[in-house]
């Protein structure tokens, strides 16, 4: 079975390689067929392996020092279901893309990158050691980088992909540090040895400030650092506070990409990592997870309320839902979290594809009439339900699942999380009760913003006509490439796929796959009161939204220009804050260090150089004027004497005589006097 899984992983890689050499429209088919085959293999693997224990094969990759690095495939419930999930999401998106990107000049390049992403994502799911995990973790980020910046001439797009990659890199560094801490503690990268049943992690404990493992012990702080590292990685990939700001910007990529990567699969990788590394978190660390997740969910929901960009609303919705999952992990609702991951993937992907269809049609209108509008702005849309009925139905299903209305998959997973949140808060002090209450509020906000979105887009009248009344509107559901994925995903958003009982999440097979049987008892009142109460409130909220946006009653509780609106509209000013707090200081630091390099270090060197130069000049001066000067003086004296003596050699006999006489006289006088 492991080889089936391996083949499923490698097929998109094959497509990637083939597409690398291929030009033209064929690449779309290559990728789609590859993902289709991969999906078939994934189904086979799933059938054989799910709930069938762990399958693990590995081969020696390389040896470094005494450590042998194995590369292998690890299949358990978690990886198998994600393998299937990724394929199931990727297939409709591929089909959708063939139409959506059909007119792009770099069609082939798009599918090349898409295949690379699928390969990385599938591989990430099945690999069995931390090094490979990190490798594909980063490759996923890289392919996402390529796809966000696919329209590389768009300035915002390339800014966004840079931001995404760097944000993700922060997480990567955290993950790397965590992996290395684990390696230095346990001397292995193997996932099973580390996190498996009775693995090394479960054998180690913290005592007296030391983190004691079977083989070695290091200060306990490194356990926290490892956890923080993993958590940073999760935050980056799954767009949790404080590293969430890249995801809304990432919407600059093609919508199909947003559907696949930034809604369903890649962002889920963070949750997947949490699932893999779950054993290493202790209670207090889990509490932190819960708080962060809860905060993120709430924050993103409030931001989504005021956004006008169709995709941005969905992006914040994604952040919010991922917050739910992280919180679920934090409250030890491991199974619910993964369950929500699966259901969310389908309904969010569906919503994005709906958005894709709508945007595509709006773009069409824009191009046809040469309008100067943003095709993603919901303020220009409206009344589309009659023009694109299938899309409308899909949107309703997706929205319902997101809100968690009964009969949808979202109801099963989301209410499960909420119920367990209340149960969890019961066991803790009263302060912790704020978390489930916040989650309830977030759910209501979710209902409001998604209702706003659907009402703005599909109800009322087409507001483009306000801009230019005489536009030609050829708006429809599009071809089969649009319809098939929507239908496929809509079906997956309904309850029968996950559970035969539409009301009880505990009966879902996904939930059961991750939860041992004894937890399935309905122990308290929450199991009844929360779904009922929540759904009633949700319906009220949706009606309220209907009243505001469709019937256009003036019922908004606050005006559009007060501080709360601005705060929400500007996404809580995170971008500005990060820019001021991190980007600018780092740039300033680098500028300062460069100045230091040029001025101080180089200055020191050139100072030395100057000193040397000066010394040599001094030596030169000394040489020239003192030593040479001395010699010159001697020669000058000799020359002077010579010239002086020469002046006697007049050739005049009388002078000679005179001087001879002078000497004689002098001698005489000398003799006489002495």
């Amino acid at each position, binding site marked *: 079975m492991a080889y089936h899984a391996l083949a499923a992983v490698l097929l998109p890689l094959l497509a990637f390689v083939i597409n690398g050499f291929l030009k033209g429209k064929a690449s779309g088919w290559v990728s789609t067929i590859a993902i289709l085959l991969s999906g078939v293999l994934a189904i086979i693997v799933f059938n054989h392996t799910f709930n069938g224990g762990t399958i693990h094969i590995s081969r020696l990759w390389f040896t470094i020092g005494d450590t042998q690095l194995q590369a292998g495939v690890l299949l358990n419930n978690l990886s198998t279901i994600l393998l299937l999930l990724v394929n199931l999401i990727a297939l409709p998106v591929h089909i959708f893309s063939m139409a959506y990107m059909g007119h792009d000049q770099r069609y082939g390049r798009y599918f090349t990158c898409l295949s690379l992403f699928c390969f990385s994502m599938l591989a990430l799911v099945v690999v069995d050691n931390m090094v490979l995990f990190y490798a594909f973790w980063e490759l996923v980020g890289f392919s996402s980088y390529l796809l966000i910046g696919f329209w590389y001439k768009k300035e915002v797009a390339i800014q966004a992909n840079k931001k995404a990659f760097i944000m993700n890199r922060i997480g990567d560094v955290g993950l790397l540090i965590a992996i290395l801490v684990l390696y230095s503690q346990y001397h292995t990268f193997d996932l099973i040895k580390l996190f498996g049943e009775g693995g090394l992690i479960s054998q180690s404990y913290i005592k007296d400030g030391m983190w004691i493992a079977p083989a070695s012990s290091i200060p306990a702080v490194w356990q926290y650092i490892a956890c923080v590292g993993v958590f940073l990685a999760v935050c980056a990939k799954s767009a949790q506070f404080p590293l969430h700001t890249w995801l809304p910007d990432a919407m600059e990529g093609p919508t199909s990409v947003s559907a696949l990567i930034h809604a369903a699969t890649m962002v889920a990788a963070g949750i997947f990592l949490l699932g893999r590394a779950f054993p290493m978190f202790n209670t207090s660390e889990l509490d932190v997870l819960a708080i962060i997740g809860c905060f993120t969910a709430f924050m993103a929901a409030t931001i989504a309320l005021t956004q006008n960009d169709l995709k941005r609303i969905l992006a914040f919705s994604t952040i919010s839902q991922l917050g739910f999952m992280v919180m679920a992990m934090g409250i030890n609702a491991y199974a619910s979290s993964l369950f929500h991951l699966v259901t969310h993937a389908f309904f969010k992907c569906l919503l994005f594809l709906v958005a894709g269809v709508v945007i595509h049609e709006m773009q069409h209108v824009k191009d046809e009439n040469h309008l100067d509008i943003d095709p993603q702005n919901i303020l220009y849309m409206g009344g589309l339900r009659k023009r694109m009925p299938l899309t409308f139905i899909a949107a309703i299903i997706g929205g319902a699942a997101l809100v968690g209305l009964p009969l949808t998959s979202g109801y099963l997973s989301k209410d499960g999380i909420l119920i367990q949140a209340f149960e969890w808060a019961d066991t803790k002090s009263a302060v912790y009760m704020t978390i489930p209450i916040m989650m309830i509020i977030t759910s209501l906000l979710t209902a409001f913003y998604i209702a706003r979105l659907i009402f703005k887009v599909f109800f009322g009248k087409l507001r483009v006509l306000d801009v230019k009344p005489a536009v030609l509107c050829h708006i429809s559901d599009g071809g089969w490439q649009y319809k098939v994925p929507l239908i496929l995903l809509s079906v997956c958003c309904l309850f029968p796929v996950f559970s035969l009982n539409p009301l009880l999440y505990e009966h879902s097979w996904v939930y059961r796959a991750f939860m041992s049987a004894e937890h399935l008892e309905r122990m308290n009142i929450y199991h009844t009161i929360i779904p009922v109460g929540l759904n009633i409130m949700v319906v009220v909220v949706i009606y309220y939204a209907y009243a505001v946006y469709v019937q256009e009653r003036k019922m908004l509780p606050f005006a559009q220009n007060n501080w709360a609106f601005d705060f929400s509209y500007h996404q809580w000013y995170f971008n500005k804050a990060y820019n001021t707090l991190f980007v600018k200081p780092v740039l300033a630091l680098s500028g300062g260090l460069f100045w230091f390099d040029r001025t101080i270090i180089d200055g020191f060197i050139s100072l030395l150089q100057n000193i040397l130069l000066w010394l040599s000049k001094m030596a030169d001066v000394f040489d020239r004027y003192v030593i040479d000067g001395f010699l010159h003086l001697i020669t000058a004296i000799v020359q002077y004497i010579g010239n002086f003596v020469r002046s006697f050699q007049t050739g005049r006999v*009388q002078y000679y005589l*005179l001087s001879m*006489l*002078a000497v*004689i*006289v002098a001698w*005489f*006088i000398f003799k*006489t006097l002495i």
Partner: protein
Amino acid sequence: MTAANILFDIMSFIALASALYVAASKNLVRSIFMFFVTLFALAGLYVLALADFVAVTQIVVYVGGILVLILFAFMLSGRETLDVLQQPERKVWKVSNLPALLIVGLLFVVLINVILKTDADHLGWVSDSIKSKNYIANSGDMTANIGINLMTRYLLPFEVISILLMMALVGAAHLSRKEQAV
């Protein structure tokens, strides 16, 4: 003060004065003629030193020979030579003569000093010769003695001198020939 002393003074005055004139004169011909006077005065001094023969020889050779030779030398050598020779000096005292004067003056002082220090009249051999009467007195003819000595004691120098004299004369004659003969 004997007459000899007076004569000596006169003679030496004449000699010195004419010599000074020679030194001071810018005219060649005049200085030559004043040199005659000097030589004559010197011959007188020789006589006073009881050397008659020498004095006569002095007059014959010097006055008769050398000076005439000098006069003839430039008189015979043509007019232009005389012109050159007689170019008058512009100044009596030239600054350039000062070093010479100084040196000569110093030498003079030195000489006089030496002479006075020597006290020639009381030199050992002079005193000896006075004691042994080996000095020439006023009376007596020394010429015979000179002749004898010349042929006996000083024969060799005499002959050498004569050969030298001849060589000099031949040489002088050769040198003063006209160019074309060379």
